[in-house]
């Protein structure tokens, strides 16, 4: 859906985006992670045709952002990190104004805007002036605004920034709904655990380059080279540890409390299955056997500290 090739953006001698490459398949929620000034917003603005790239190509659904900007803008819905609203318009009028830009008028416009207000849970606010809405509501309204022309690709720059926990959870639910509707979403956020939970893939960007990308699991493996499983037993923990020690691929065993143990290993799901079977065959009363997700914050700190670009 979105393909970025060798994208560069320079401001004088400073390179905000440096040879950035990215591919986001259709229907994916892609999390854009990076420290402040890494080039996330610059990249997003170039994708939306708000900024001129120094070099490189951006294609959305095969459409070049430079050659066919108007066509591209029909496919993209953009929500900037900082945005304002027309405080002298009412909520419904605000959406209808943007609908009219895409030549959606009359009954069609009213229907679409009502549906969108329902999606973002603002139906009861439709006759309120935009200015009277809370920050979280304005964020949701802006998201609804970006959907008014039914775009295939959503570019959301820090959509949950400044929101309280409840509003963040609601925003996450809306994004999940949008994914189920088949939208492709590129979302940047500083709240990493949320991204890990929400996104099908993430890209870590630093100094204008994507230093690592893939699913959270893939990145965890790339960063730590091992995976961790946590095993919980009713009793006989020592016996369980003895079984684990028989496997040379398990390079770390760390008891956690009286009846739990964490084992880091270098292997795949087949290995994990074999290990579980072995524990059961040894009559060890296993009650839980689960793989631990990589901690995105740790991964982020590790990757951005080394600044290595994946090969």
């Amino acid at each position, binding site marked *: 859906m979105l393909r970025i090739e060798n994208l560069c953006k320079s401001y004088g001698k400073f390179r905000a985006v440096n040879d950035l490459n990215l591919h986001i398949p259709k229907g994916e929620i892609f999390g854009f992670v990076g420290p402040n000034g890494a080039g996330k917003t610059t990249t997003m603005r170039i994708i939306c045709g*708000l900024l001129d790239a120094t070099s490189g190509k951006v294609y959305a659904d095969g459409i070049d952002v*430079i050659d066919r900007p108007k066509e591209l803008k029909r496919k*993209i819905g*953009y929500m*900037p990190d900082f*945005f304002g609203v027309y405080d002298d318009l009412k909520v419904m009028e605000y959406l209808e104004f943007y609908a*009219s830009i*895409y030549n959606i008028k009359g009954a069609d416009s009213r229907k679409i805007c009502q549906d969108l207000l329902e999606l973002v849970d603002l139906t009861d606010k439709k006759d309120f002036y935009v200015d009277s809405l809370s920050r979280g509501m304005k964020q949701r309204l802006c998201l609804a605004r970006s959907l008014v022309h039914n775009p295939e690709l959503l570019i959301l720059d820090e959509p949950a920034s400044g929101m309280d926990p409840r509003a963040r959870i609601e925003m996450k639910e809306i994004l999940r709904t949008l994914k189920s509707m088949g939208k492709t979403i590129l979302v940047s956020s500083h709240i990493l655990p949320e991204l890990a939970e929400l996104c099908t893939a993430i890209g870590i960007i630093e100094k204008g380059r994507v230093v690592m990308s893939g699913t959270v699991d893939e990145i965890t493996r790339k960063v730590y080279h091992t995976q961790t499983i946590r095993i919980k037993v009713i009793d006989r923990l020592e016996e369980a540890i003895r079984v684990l020690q028989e496997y040379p691929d398990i390079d770390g065993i760390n008891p956690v409390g009286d009846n739990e143990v964490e084992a880091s290993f270098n292997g795949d799901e087949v290995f994990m299955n074999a290990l579980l079977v072995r524990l059961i065959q040894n009559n060890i009363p296993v009650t839980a056997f689960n793989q631990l997700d990589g901690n995105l914050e740790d991964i982020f700190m590790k990757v951005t500290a080394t600044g290595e670009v994946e090969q």
Partner: protein
Amino acid sequence: MSANTQKRYFRINPVLLKELKVRMRSWKAAILIGTYNFVLLLLTIFIMKLTMNNDIGAPTQATIFGTYAFLVAAQFGLITLIAPALTAGAISGEREKQTLDILLSTTLNHRSIITGKLFSSLSQIILLLVSSIPVFSIIFLYGGIGLVQLLQVYLFFILIAVTLGSIGIFFSTFIKKSTAANVLTYAVVVFLYLGTILISVFYVQLVIMPNYTNSQYEGTFWVFNLNPAVALISLVMDQFQEGGGRVFQGLTLTVQQGKLHLWHINAIFNAGLSVVLLFLSALKLNPVKRKWLGRGKK
């Protein structure tokens, strides 16, 4: 013409529509129209009282001319004050409110944003002009002024409003802060109204006049053609077939340059200036200029 093309052809600029809705329903619009007409009415009563006290019986040609010229000048002065104020914050205001990026990320054409903003301001000025017709038509009581003359003056007003509005839009696009855009817009307006006169007078006195020691310089120095106020005087004098003649060295209002009067040249200049300023504004507003500059070509 296909249905789609027809739909596109008759499409009203969404920015214009939104601006009109917002501007016209607020109290500000009513207050502006009320104040404008109130000031104009006071001025009209003032000039009527002044002229009627002096005239016994039918008004003289001089009285009619004086009253008409005064009303035209008053209306012109008000437009000069209002037009830049309505436009100088149009784009910079969007930038300050952080709504410009969202607007630019839509399919809306950059030219549409510029023209939408200009014409919404202009429509407010036209509304002021139309609403002032009853006050202005007092001049018909005197006779001697036809509809054609009034129409000519009103069209000139609209052209001046477009020019001043374009200057406002231009600075609003190029300057980030509305306050700075307002200051620069009024600075250019002052230059057009006063600066051109000062430059002309000094140039004529210091450079041209030394060559006319034994004769009078009967021409009009070209910089005067840029001055809207001078052009308006030229138009009103033209309507009354008043001589006007040489106001001072270097400014002779009745002299035709080719077949054009001073106000003709000024109108052409204003129209040209507006087109250039609006074009540059639209160009500046377009964030992706590679196509324009040919850099995007493979």
